[in-house]
């Protein structure tokens, strides 16, 4: 029980450790835009206490707030409430909301590879370690 990771809580000065899942989303072309099919919230310029999905209310990370039905994100396995840690190698734990949006909506990228974390992952790892 004691070996569980630090979770997604952020301790200043210490590296963040989390159990992550790799999700690869292929963008869908709709007219002139490439869409991913989900909505994000959060960022270092936003109010973290408004985030309904975060466990720690000081967490200013980027969270998935909505997933459109049948969209590329749902197909790839993204769930609502996931915290996005990385996008194509770029860190998303300390970015502004607009920077996060830009990193996800680059026009020349057709595929985005996300590292996301959620509380159920953490619990699953803990359970598997205990059993």
């Amino acid at each position, binding site marked *: 029980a004691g070996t569980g990771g630090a979770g997604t809580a952020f301790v200043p000065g210490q590296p963040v450790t989390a159990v992550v899942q790799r999700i690869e989303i292929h963008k869908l072309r709709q007219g002139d835009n490439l*869409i*991913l099919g*989900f*909505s*994000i*919230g*959060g960022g270092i310029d*936003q*109010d973290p*206490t*408004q*985030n309904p999905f975060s466990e720690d209310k000081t967490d200013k990370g980027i969270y998935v*707030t*909505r997933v*459109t039905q049948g969209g590329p994100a749902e197909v790839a396995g993204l769930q609502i409430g996931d915290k996005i840690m990385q996008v194509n190698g770029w860190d998303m734990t300390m970015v502004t*909301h607009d920077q996060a*949006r830009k990193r*996800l*909506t680059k026009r020349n990228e057709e595929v985005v590879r996300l590292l996301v974390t959620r509380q159920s992952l953490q619990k699953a790892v803990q359970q598997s370690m205990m059993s």
Partner: protein
Amino acid sequence: MDNESQYSGYSYKSGHSRSSRKHRDRRERHRSKSRDGTRGDKSVTIQAPGEPLLDNESTRGDERDDNWGETTTVVTGTSEHSISHDDLTRITKDMEDSAHLDCSRHLGVALGVALALLAFLTPLAFLLLPQLLWREELEPCGTPCEGLFISVAFKLLILLLGSWALFFRRPKAFFPRVFVFRALLMVLVFLLVVSYWLFYGVRILDSRDRNYRGVVQFAVSLVDALLFVHYLAVVLLELRQLQPQFTLKAVRSADGASRFYNVGHLSIQRAAVWILENYYHDFPVYNPALLNLPKSVLSKKMSGFKVYSLGEENSTNNSTGQSRAVIAAAARRRDNSHNEFYYEEAEHERRVRKRRARLVVAVEEAFTHIKRLQEEDQKNPREIMDPREAAQAIFASMARAMQKYLRTTKQQPYHTMESILQHLEFCITHDMTPKAFLERYLTAGPTIQYHKDRWLAKQWTLVSEEPVTNGLKDGVVFVLKRQDFSLVVSTKKIPFFKLSEEFVDPKSHKFIMRLQSETSV
């Protein structure tokens, strides 16, 4: 006075072609001539060493100019204007100097005074006549009469003071037509007094009424009625116009200076006087030298076109057709007069600023040369100066910079050396700083600031389509004319405001952080 024309010629010299210089010099000479006729004797004439060089240059330029043919075909509004200006100033000066023999105005005043005296003395007469004529027959009248006597005395005193406050004022203007309210009041007072006298004559004098108390009460009622008439006068003459009902826009036709004023219900002639009173302290002084675009900018428009009629025999519509053709061709032709205008304005601005800087520095430095005598200073009596001498002492060091600045801003007719010295003396006496001394010269002030004889005109003509005793209404336009410019006044009604109320509970001011923004990707 030749110096003036040469200076102005020099200031326009930069950036202009030679052919246009003739226009300028001609215009400057016209202007200096008109100035000579009426005001030239008082200008600043301090000669500084370097100046004669400039004179030679500008006259030489005139002789070198050989495109004289071009100028004769141009219809120049400016040169005609300056000639007629000259004539008009001479004519109107004669008009103003002649004595005003207006019997009608003195008649009005005399009538008013007579009526006032009559009204004032009537109650006293009412009281005294029974005593004088049939004293023996009068019933004795004790305390009530005495009370009434006191009240009559005090009411008459109050009436006297009120009339003095309201009517005994120097009239501020002569109106072209009768002042309706005042006439109305005079008629009212006259009717009142006459009717009282009628009743008195019939009921009391003829029948020799013995009841003295009744007579006294009769007199007291007259005094009361007079006090109410005085109240009516206050309301009609003073109070009604106070609440603003109209906004008047006054625009000066010569240079477009405009102001807005709020007035109440007034007749057109009273509104005109109101506007004039405000004109003298609100509008910057009318400076004819600042009006026109330099002729060099405008002269190129029409010249250079000659109209040939090819075989047309009918001469009826030739002139209009020709002029229209010329105008159309001139409009189509590409001209750069706006360019010249722009650069000339920029150049002039720069020059003014340079001269201004020099003037400010010179004045500041001059003011450091004197200081007020303190008691503890031990000074030789010969070195102590009164303000006039102090002013003269420091004037010399700033005179040249001042003269150059006034010339550049074309203000030199407005300030004579004597007036500058007087103003300097005034500023020194009141411990003013150089900046305070200069505020009079750096900005063109209102007309009333300048010397009375030159700029304060008393004769204005009111031009109006409606009778001038009509009240102001929305859309009324009238013009106040002087000989060289006019004030066009237009009326607009102040809108009716619908004010509604909204109650805000002070406790309702609450704030939250912005919700997390959500972006769909």
